[in-house]
């Protein structure tokens, strides 16, 4: 019974699914030039593959100097956020067929952070803002002998913001962050939200005080770029709005 199956596979592979795609990548190498420039690569690729596969083809087969970050390649580690066709996305979650492969696909580093080489940016300011909001459980009193229990309703309260993978797609899509890197940025506020609204946590007041700063939540101009960019579908602007309202009402 194996033979018919094989025949079918051969028949399908006869019609090649491959198409020719132009990948237009913003290259930058500080050792060669201070100017970034666009470089085109033409590759054969199945449109059902991802932009990350296209980048791999370039790096492995055409130009080994192409530099970009990626680790898990499955949308969990958050390493490969980049600007594809002008929007922040994860290269490993973006299919070629979804980014209009008839035209050149532009790939650039994310905005607002210093580009180190090609698609790699300096993530230090981003992670510093993340550390500044104290993204860990803060409690008072004695440690319980058993686990800290929480009702499903209380868990639901901050469920959305637990999904963050710290890819910086939101923070680097924010016009306020582009103009002033001092702004905490959506990702840090999302991770503060995750603990502020956690019924087990007792550091909410401290975190709200940090975000009440002039570079805190009040810098948000509700452009919704962060919500549109988030590869995890977190309603980022909504989370920021909830922190703003918690600051006004002191109820959280």
């Amino acid at each position: 019974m194996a033979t018919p199956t094989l025949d079918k596979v051969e028949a399908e592979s006869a019609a090649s699914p491959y198409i020719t795609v132009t990948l237009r990548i913003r290259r930058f190498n500080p050792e060669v030039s201070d100017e970034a420039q666009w470089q085109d690569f033409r590759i054969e690729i199945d449109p059902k593959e991802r932009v990350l596969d296209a980048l791999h083809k370039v790096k492995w087969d055409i130009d080994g100097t192409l530099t970009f970050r990626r680790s898990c390649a499955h949308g969990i580690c958050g390493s490969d956020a980049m600007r594809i066709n002008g929007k922040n996305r994860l290269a490993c979650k973006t299919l070629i067929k979804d980014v209009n492969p008839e035209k050149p696909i532009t790939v650039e580093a994310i905005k607002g952070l210093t580009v180190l080489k090609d698609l790699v940016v300096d993530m230090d300011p981003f992670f510093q803002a993340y550390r500044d909001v104290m993204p860990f459980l803060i409690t008072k009193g004695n440690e319980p002998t058993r686990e800290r229990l929480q009702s499903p309703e209380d868990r639901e309260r901050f469920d959305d913001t637990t999904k963050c993978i710290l890819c910086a797609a939101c923070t680097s899509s924010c016009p306020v962050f582009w103009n002033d890197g001092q702004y905490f940025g959506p990702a840090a506020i999302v991770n503060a939200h995750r603990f502020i609204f956690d019924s087990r946590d007792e550091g909410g007041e401290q975190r709200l005080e940090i975000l009440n700063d002039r570079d805190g939540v009040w810098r948000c101009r509700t452009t919704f770029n962060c919500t549109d960019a988030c590869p995890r579908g977190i309603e980022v602007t909504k989370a920021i709005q909830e922190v703003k309202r918690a600051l006004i009402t002191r109820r959280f």
Partner: protein
Amino acid sequence: MPAGTLYRGREGMWSWVAHRVTGVLIFFFLFVHVLDTALVRVSPEAYDDVVATYKTPIVALLEYGLVAAILFHALNGLRIVAVDFWAKGPRYQKQMLWSVVGIWVVLMVGALYPVLGHAVREVFGS
């Protein structure tokens, strides 16, 4: 080669850009407005002379632009208030933006005659 490092934001980003632009335009109007109104303290005749220069079709067109800027800024301002204070605001921001644009178009059509009627009569005669 694409000029490009423009970020392709969606409705939210462009409404913010429009809000900024209309805000700056309104500021410039207020600047001029304060100056010409303050002129009445200097001399009422000079004030009359300056205001008389405003009675031209071109200024009428500028006034229509001012109506456009203020209406958008005001309506979108209400949308931003709703985004920040209404729990469901962020989820309905796009619908609210299109409502703002719809109301804006209706009001702009309504403002056509009151603002531009005089200028049209002046240019085309009647």
